[in-house]
């Protein structure tokens, strides 16, 4: 126990020392967050500090935990989200109240950047004009309107149900639809209204208009930067200076620019009045691809190795049945049913893990375990009783029986399990990008957000090729590792 504590403390101290070098900036996986991350990075670099970006992390909880644990030093969020989702105190109204609560966690908050990115109801300009719809109040008189709302908006406390109640909208013409697909639905006239973020570039792009929230139902989602109070003073200063420099119109324009050019860094350059930026495309595709692929192989490889080292012995124990055996198999199966994002979220608060490559490897390791454990157990259990008996009758001890007879005979099944794990790991490793651990998931996630198929494919095709190569590699390994007598 004491040793564990020492290691944990060691990890914390090291982690801290590393974080003190470049200022690490996080972002969530939607356009505006990516752009604000790039803007923060440039601002801090202008102040003479090194920066590093962990872009597209999977959701508020993950970025917040990363900030708290020191894995990142700052990221952009919204006052409404901070009060409701992070602090869980929706009645915190003023910025100072929020700031005081955050200080208890060692976190600071800048003054607002100057825009409010709240929810909004949007519809096509021509429809709005034809039906004289200007504000949410006007909806009361049009029960025939069809709503296509995101699932999150349907569930949120500041979402559809309370909104309809407040405004007295009695329609039942409502269905849940994906955010991106909803825009297509509007365009084709399959739905009339949907929810959106007020600074969403797609509003202007698709010639949509926002209905006025006459009763001020939607909470304020004013953009701010959150930062660690122990971050370098120059970095905090640089973030503070960004306050009040971005109004809604400007942010919407930057979002649009980022989506048009598929390049967040370029949008950030525009913010700094450098319309013809060249610095952004510095890294060539091949160098990016190499970086992603190497990291991907590192994640999948290390986790697979660990899964083999742990999974085979566990499989041997499981093959002997009994309580321990069923407990091991039950554990491995249960792990497999937990959604991957949930595993990441569960691991992140633990000491030693946090937002790091270690967490991604640990999650992949857990996923890789089941096929190896199960196949090892099955392979050993399916050895003919006569062979088992012959080995005992020869007078071989348990160790010799295991290593010279049972494991070699079960080798085909065990290798099949390892192969399954390897292919699963290559696929699942794309999730590492959600916690900023890199790999081929990086372009996939950013492409999903941009709805840009090219970017998605930049990650998806290499990942698929990698999975095939791994499959072939293991097929070749079968020939080397499975004894010839078993392949006849």
């Amino acid at each position, binding site marked *: 126990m004491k040793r564990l504590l020492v290691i944990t403390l060691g990890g914390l101290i090291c982690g801290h020392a590393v974080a003190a070098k470049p200022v690490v900036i996080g972002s969530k996986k939607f356009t505006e967050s990516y752009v604000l991350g790039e803007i923060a990075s440039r601002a801090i670099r202008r102040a003479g500090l090194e920066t590093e970006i962990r872009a597209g992390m999977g959701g508020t909880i993950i970025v917040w935990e990363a900030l708290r644990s020191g894995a990142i030093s700052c990221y952009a969020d919204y006052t409404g989200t901070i009060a409701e989702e992070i602090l869980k105190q929706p009645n915190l109204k003023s910025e100072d109240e929020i700031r005081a609560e955050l200080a208890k966690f060692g976190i600071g908050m800048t003054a607002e950047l100057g825009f409010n990115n709240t929810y909004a109801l949007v519809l096509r300009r021509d429809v709005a004009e034809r039906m004289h719809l200007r504000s949410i109040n006007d909806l009361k008189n049009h029960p025939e309107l069809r709503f296509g709302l995101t699932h999150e908006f349907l569930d949120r406390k500041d979402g559809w149900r309370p909104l309809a109640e407040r405004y007295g909208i009695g329609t039942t013409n409502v269905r849940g639809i994906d955010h991106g697909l909803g825009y297509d639905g509007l365009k084709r006239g399959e739905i009339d209204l949907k929810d959106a973020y007020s600074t969403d570039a797609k509003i202007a792009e698709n010639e949509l208009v926002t209905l006025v929230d006459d009763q001020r139902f939607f909470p304020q989602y004013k953009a701010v930067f959150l930062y660690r109070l122990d971050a370098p003073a120059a970095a905090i200063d640089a973030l503070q200076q960004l306050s009040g420099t971005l109004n809604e119109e400007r942010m919407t324009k930057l979002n649009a620019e980022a989506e048009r050019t598929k390049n967040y860094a370029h949008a950030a350059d525009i913010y700094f009045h450098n319309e013809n930026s060249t610095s952004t495309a510095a890294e060539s595709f091949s160098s990016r691809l190499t970086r992603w692929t190497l990291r991907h192989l590192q994640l999948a490889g290390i986790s697979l190795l660990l899964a083999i080292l742990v999974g085979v012995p566990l499989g041997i124990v499981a093959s002997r049945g009994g309580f321990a055996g069923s407990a091991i198999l039950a554990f491995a199966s249960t792990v497999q049913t937990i959604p991957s994002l949930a595993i990441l979220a569960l691991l992140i608060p633990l000491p030693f893990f946090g937002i790091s490559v270690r967490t991604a490897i640990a999650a992949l390791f857990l996923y890789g375990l089941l096929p190896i454990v199960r196949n090892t157990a099955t392979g050993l259990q399916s050895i*003919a009783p*006569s*062979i088992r*008996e*012959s*080995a*005992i*009758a*020869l*007078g*071989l*001890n348990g160790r*010799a029986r295991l290593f*010279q*007879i049972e494991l*070699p*005979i079960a*080798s085909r099944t065990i290798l099949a399990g390892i192969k399954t794990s390897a292919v699963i790991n290559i696929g699942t490793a794309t999730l590492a990008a959600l916690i900023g651990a890199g790999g081929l998931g990086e372009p996939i996630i950013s492409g999903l957000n941009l709805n840009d198929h090219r970017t998605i494919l930049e990650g998806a095709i290499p990942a698929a090729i990698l999975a095939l190569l791994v499959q072939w590699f293991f097929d070749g390994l079968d020939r080397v590792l499975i*004894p*010839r*007598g*078993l392949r*006849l």
Partner: protein
Amino acid sequence: MLIGPSGCGKSTLLRLIIRILSPDSGRVLFDGMEVTATNVAALRHRTGYVIQDGGLFPHLTARENVLLLPRHLGRTPAEMELRIGELCALTRFPEAAMNRYPAELSGGQRQRVSLMRALVLAPELLLLDEPLGALDPLVRIALQRDLKEIFTRLQQTTILVTHDLAEAAYLADEIVLMKEGRVVQKGTLSDLRDHPAEPFVTEFIEAQRSLTFA
């Protein structure tokens, strides 16, 4: 020679001797010494065991199967090669085929290899559990003949389990008839036929005869 109907406990008795099963009650004596969990490993090295389907290890060649135990016990290669030569001659197995895997051998050949593996350390006791049970009649007769010759040459204690009375009569010095886990009668075939200890003995012999000539 242990004989008796299926399920009478013949194979179980063999398994008890080398403690693949441990007895619920009673003791097994080997050369006057009780077989226990601690001395069984050494006793197993002094015993050879062959089962119906041979129990050869499929991932090892015939040679590796035979030499697994001597190798494990650190015998020298020269010593082992010599032994292989002797055993191939004894069991009439072509030495060239020793590098084949079990899957590449016929059923009869597999049983010969299995016998070699059992004999490699020159055990004091040979246990054969229906060694010919899975073979077709012609191969079976050839192997019966060879077994008889081997038994005569080796002159060692052998316990063979079979349910075939003709085989027992041909190979055995003494037949032990079992039923439902107990010994019914011991003796030669004529002892059993002429002086049955109980009606079951005659019944068993008659059943076998009708089976043979049906």
